[in-house]
């Protein structure tokens, strides 16, 4: 039996290992900042104050929230459409033959091209951003969900089917729990992508948001500001990932745990 103190040591050891790379990175940066000009490599102290400044000043924080909102809106939109497309593709060969290559083609188009198209096609800034966010996230979501549907256990599917469930019950009892792990993974992966696309999307004329603020910092040649705004996005992604992890731990508690790691 491990005593409370050894458990505590083990936990603090884990935390130390988890944060170690960031500490090393920060140290290297900080040391560099002593020798290099401030406007190239600002001190982390400055970055820290700029970050707290953004977090505590409502007009600035609203900008960060706007970006988070755009990411979520785009992802939810892409997810809903992606689920619908995946179900259609799973059921119909023709739809699969048509949509598969189309989505693949879309995947090859750079985000910046969509920005240009969005500016030409749409008037409202938010409409443009939503369009860009959805269209860039949609292919991945669709393929991931389609893969999950195709990967469902045929044995379990037939077993459930043999009870003659209604469509809704089939979905609730069998399909959703089967594909949930893949859905959560898809959200994790696409979140990283979406957070990188959103700053580009905000170049369509947004007057707020991390992308807009970054552009301001570039014009002011303010490296500390650029870093602080970047951190806002990174923090948002990390927090959301943490929430998804929490859902995973809760939803998959039924899984067997191996005592030995891979």
């Amino acid at each position, binding site marked *: 039996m491990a005593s409370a103190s050894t458990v505590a040591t083990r936990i603090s050891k884990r935390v130390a290992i988890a944060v170690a790379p960031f500490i090393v990175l920060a140290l290297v940066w900080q040391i560099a900042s002593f020798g290099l000009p401030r406007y190239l490599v600002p001190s982390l102290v400055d970055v820290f104050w700029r970050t707290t400044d953004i977090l505590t000043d409502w007009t600035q924080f609203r900008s960060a929230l706007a970006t988070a909102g755009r990411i979520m809106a785009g992802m939810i939109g892409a997810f809903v459409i992606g689920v619908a497309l995946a179900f259609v593709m799973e059921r119909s060969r023709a739809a699969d033959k048509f949509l598969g290559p189309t989505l693949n083609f879309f995947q090859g188009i750079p985000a910046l091209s969509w920005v240009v198209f969005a500016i030409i096609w749409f008037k409202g800034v938010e409409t443009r951003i939503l369009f860009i966010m959805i269209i860039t996230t949609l292919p991945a979501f669709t393929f991931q969900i389609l893969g999950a549907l195709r990967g469902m256990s045929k044995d*379990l599917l037939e*077993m459930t089917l*043999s*009870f003659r469930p209604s469509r809704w019950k089939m979905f609730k*009892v069998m399909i959703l729990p089967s594909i949930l792990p893949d859905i959560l993974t898809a959200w994790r992966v696409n979140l990283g992508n979406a957070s990188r696309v959103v700053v580009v999307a905000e170049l369509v004329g947004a007057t707020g948001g991390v992308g807009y603020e970054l552009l301001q910092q570039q014009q002011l040649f303010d490296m500390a500001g650029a870093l602080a705004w970047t951190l806002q996005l990174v923090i948002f992604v990390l927090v959301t990932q943490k929430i998804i992890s929490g859902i995973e731990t809760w939803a998959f508690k*039924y899984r*067997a745990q191996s005592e030995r790691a891979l």
Partner: protein
Amino acid sequence: MTMTEPGSEARTVEIHFENVSKVFGRDEDGGGGFRAVDDLTLDIYAGEMVAILGKTGCGKSTMFNMIAGLQEPTTGRVEVKGRDPFSQFDWFRGQIAIVFQNDRLLPWRTAIENVELGLEMLDRPPAERREIAQRWLTKLGLAGHENDYPHALSGGMRQRVSIARAFATDASLLLCDEPFSALDEITANRLRDEFSALVRENGKTAVFITHSINEALQIGRRVVVLRRPARIALDERLPETLSRDEQDAMRARIQTILSE
């Protein structure tokens, strides 16, 4: 539909196979495809306990899936309770219960939640579901394991849960596809006895598919032996009690047919 079973009183036909063939592959007419079931004709009566015996790959599961309405015959007619189980799939809700070769428990549900599955499909109220599921789990010796997830149960326990799941809906027709073949001999033996008793107690019609002669003789009151591709090679009703000599004779007969 009422028919007369050869040599005894009138009984209801529960499962009716009429010149049924099943061909897998592109050519549906049997030209290039693979013939798994070949011109099979068979009637199974209400209350019968039929063991269907055949070597692996002879088309037993295919026949089973056609009764269950999961596959459609290529030619011929399959009727269950006078209806087509494939095209009238939903009509059979609550009428057929199945025990598969592997337990097929939903890994994200606890033992008791797995047993409740069929009752959920029948829209029974939650409290009633729980009570029925609990009763079946207890009957199968799984009291205390209600809230265990399948991964925490042994193979034998999992198969018991799947038997409980099949019995819980109280369907009159029970289909089993080699349910004990993945278990060790001692566990399988015990489950076979419990299973036979439950079927008799609850007055079910049971179709029991197996590749083991001993299992067929232990469980079936009627034994149907299939050739490959599936068509009938032997169809025998067994007396209530079989003397050791009679059993040996029957075993030898079946063995000869199977080794042809």
